């Protein structure tokens, strides 16, 4: 076979691979699924005792949610945030 022809064929194949490679790599890389959970941070405004629990519907920051188990002070929702857990 003519070496020029072989060269041209190899060049075409290389061009094809370089064109398709990024697409192939991107399609095989799938992001890991993430599980999200809403968390409420509770805090005693007298002694600073903190506790973390799952978010309850109707929670908002500053909402009074009971009394402190340590000193009986007022406990409020200090913050609400999303915690992400990677799966698999």
């Amino acid at each position, binding site marked *: *076979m*003519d070496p*020029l*022809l072989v060269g*041209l064929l190899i060049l075409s194949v290389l061009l094809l691979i370089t064109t398709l490679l990024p697409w192939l790599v991107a399609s095989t890389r799938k992001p890991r699924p993430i599980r999200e959970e*809403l*968390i409420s*941070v509770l*805090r005693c*405004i007298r002694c600073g005792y903190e506790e973390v629990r799952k*978010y309850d*519907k*109707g929670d*908002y*920051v*500053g*909402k009074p949610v009971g009394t402190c188990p340590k000193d009986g002070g007022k406990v*409020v929702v*200090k*913050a*609400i*945030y*999303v*915690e*992400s857990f990677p799966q698999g």
Partner: protein
Amino acid sequence: MLVEGGNNIVSYLIVLLFLASFIMNFTDIPQRIQLQRYSSFVRRKIYQLEELEVDARRKAVSYMSSLGVSEPAKVLEGFINNFFLIRPVELEPTDIIRRYKHLIRTRESSVRDYVRAVLGRVERSVQHSVETVLEVVGVIRLINKLVRHYLELGLKYNNWILVMQLAIQMPEIVELTKAYANSLNAFTSGLPIGDSVGPLVAKIISNWGEPSREVIEGTDLYEVEVEGRKVYVIKASGPGSNVGWPGEALERVIEEIGGPVDRIITVDAALKLESEETGDVAYGTGAAIGDIGPEKIAMERVASKYSIPLDAVVVKMSEVEALSPLSRKLYEATVRAYEEVLRIIREKVKEGGRVIVIGVGNTVGVR
């Protein structure tokens, strides 16, 4: 024979190469092909945007239904294409801030009246959240309309550069629209978002107490003592979606006190550069507020009138994070921002002094 055949193929290939090179260099065919490729990419992304819009509309309608609004779809339609704001003439800068302020307040009160008319008597936080939900769906609709406009304009005039630019920007546009669509979950459920870091810090400083009063509509004032310093805390009234009028509130508080304030500290979320980390806390000088102008200038004017140092503490995040429910990383940054504010108070305000802390941002989910 074989050698001759091989030479023929080579000659054909060389001719083909020359032909291809001619087409590539001296005709518009490659650009036309690119125009088709890019426009089909944009169309695929438009389908995604449309799905997001349909989903956002569905959420808004279901939220308003749950509040007892009759014909919520009609309410949504009545809002979406109306309530635009025409910017004031900027060529003549005299009194531009007053004109801006007037137009912004007029629009806000029109939106408020519209929502009040359909909602009837409800808690103010609910009223604020409905307004925000309508605004968010309006923004998603506007993004969709703009993307379609530029695509159709590009195709109409064969402007492949315009379509290519649009295609390149599409992933970013889709990401932003997704963030707006996701923010509806936070606004309808009353969850703090990334932009709520300012009000969160303000709430921590006020030790989760009740506001002493409402300075102006939708903006509260807390008065607390921190390590022997009198601290006035200003934030929007929550827990509904509301940003309040922090600039005007600051002006009023300082005028009421009569001026002697040692320091003003503003806390807000700031857009991060791609090279920066989410949750980075930084401090500097100036008014940390992402406002068109009236609120920011009110802060700067009153601070310079009484020569009060104006500090800014910001928490870095992306636009998507600012609109999404608060992440753990941003919660931890909020605590660090609070510590930074405390440090400034301790180091720069003498005992017995007065300081004003303003928690700038959307107070959704923060009372």
